């Protein structure tokens, strides 16, 4: 049988499926469904230097084949994460990725420093959260700012550094290049696509933040396109995500160029999705006579 293991920036994952940041908390809830070692890794809820309360509700809305969310980075702060969540997570036999967001480059650096002294496996720098006024998205939309912040954080970060890219940009490949040039070890993409729904009876946006981030199957074609574009532009690995909900989607994203995957919204429909998707990938590899996931990555044959 094919080996589902993947290696991203020197970190070995049991399988290519990583829980997407913000959809999986710090793992405790889903560990009541199955052992977390079922997943290749967990990208934890985005944390900030200080505790954040997040946005007022409503924080979620449904859209055709997708959802909008605007949680606003509710989290207990980096220190609490290190003290309370990380030790427990470490025991779950899965890769632990800490997802961080800051108001300033200095905050990102402070967090990266703190986390560098812990045993998290990787740091995922969220410079693309669309749901907070100063939650990083301003860093994520130009090559200059992405380059600058990557450079700054790279210097104080002793862990493999993943830069998480926003899809709300004109040219994602150039942005990925800037991250690579300044020392990112991998990129993860895509974060949510900014969207909005309005209650026609009240005229009120359904989400209190007015706009929210779209995820789920609806965004999948955009994610695949962007992963393909970025795969042609950079040499560091891509962690692909955005709307993956079946094993076929997972395979498609790998073919487009992803070395590993994150899945988020599908967990809300089906908490067991990771098990089914991993099973499907393994069977597909076997059917195709491939030995590993890496043999599938980037095998797209464009016209």
């Amino acid at each position, binding site marked *: *049988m094919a*080996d*589902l*293991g993947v290696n991203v920036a020197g970190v070995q994952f*049991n*399988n290519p499926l990583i829980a997407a940041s*913000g*959809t*999986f*908390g710090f793992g*405790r*809830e*889903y560990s*009541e*469904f*199955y*052992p977390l*070692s*079922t997943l290749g890794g967990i990208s934890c*809820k985005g944390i900030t230097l200080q505790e954040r*309360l*997040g*946005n*007022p*509700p*409503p*924080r*979620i*809305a*449904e*859209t055709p*084949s*997708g*959802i909008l*969310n605007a*949680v606003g980075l*509710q989290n207990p702060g980096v220190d609490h994460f290190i003290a309370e969540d990380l030790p427990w997570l470490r025991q779950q*036999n899965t890769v632990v990725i800490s997802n961080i967001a800051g108001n300033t480059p200095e905050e990102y650096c402070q967090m990266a420093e703190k986390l560098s002294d812990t045993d998290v496996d990787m740091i995922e720098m969220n410079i693309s959260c669309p749901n907070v006024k100063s939650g990083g998205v301003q860093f994520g939309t130009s090559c200059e700012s992405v380059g600058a912040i990557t450079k700054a954080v790279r210097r104080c970060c002793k862990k493999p550094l993943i830069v998480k890219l926003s899809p709300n940009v004109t040219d994602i490949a150039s942005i990925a290049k800037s991250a690579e040039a300044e020392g990112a070890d991998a990129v993860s993409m895509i974060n949510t696509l900014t969207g909005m729904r309005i209650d026609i009876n009240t005229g009120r946006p359904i989400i209190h933040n007015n706009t929210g981030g779209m995820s*789920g*199957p609806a965004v999948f074609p955009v994610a695949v396109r962007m992963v393909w574009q970025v795969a042609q532009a950079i040499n560091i690995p891509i962690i692909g995500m955005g709307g993956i909900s079946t094993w076929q989607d997972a395979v498609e994203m790998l073919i487009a160029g992803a070395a590993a995957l994150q899945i988020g*919204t599908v*967990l*809300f*429909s*089906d*908490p*067991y999705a990771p*098990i089914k998707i*991993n*099973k499907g990938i*393994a*069977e597909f590899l076997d059917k195709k006579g491939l030995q590993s996931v890496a043999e599938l990555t980037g095998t797209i044959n464009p016209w």
Partner: protein
Amino acid sequence: MCYTIKQINNFMGERVATIMKYDVELSRLIKKEEIAQGIFDFTVKCPSLAKKAQAGQFAHLAVPGKTLRRPISICDAVGDSLRLVFQVRGQGTEKLAQAKVGDDIDVLAPLGHGFTIPPRGTVAFIGGGIGVPPMLYSGKQAEKAIAILGFRDKAGVILAKDFEEACSQVIVTTDDGSFGLHGFVTDALRTVIDKVDLVCACGPTPMLKAVAAMAREHNTPCQVSMEERMGCGVGACLVCACKTKKDNKEGYSHVCKNGPVFNAEEVVW
């Protein structure tokens, strides 16, 4: 350590109630009735879930074609079945209402923190509108239960007979007086509050607020079941925020995990 198909299959097979706290069960719809205009009474067979269900908890139902599940309170748990009563509000509940007896519904349950009902004493169970159903199973847990059920009008009255069987006293109110007492549930509560040890309530927020205020006035503990739009339903995604105050600090609790039932004193209205 690699992940083999055997392991995967094992995981899927092993996810039984005794090992894991959360569980999804494909549940056969065995009874379906439209008990009032647009309000459906479903009985679904899900042995492993039904036996764990507690009063005030909810089920998170998958809807074909929809990304998000729909949270519906557990109205009753009898033997190996759950009873779920819901109102058609939008596309999801409309689709759910089309399920036919014999269809399988994907149920994630029982979820959340329900009512905490003391073994002794008199409890008032107050339901308003579509907040009535969860009070049925709850009412059954109390030594002495007084049910106060509020509806807009006679046509909207549901489950009155079930409550008659389950509770020591049932007061039905309608806003327009077309059935039972003319007035609001608080009007009825006022008449009995002196003899109750606890108030449990579910319904529209203004009603909950009024009930909580009255309970507070009378120094009676009060638990309220809150509603919020949900994602995961288990406490991981943090979307179902409800403003609460603990140790004098305000913050957001989560309806799906810390709730849906909160001590009324905790809720920041």
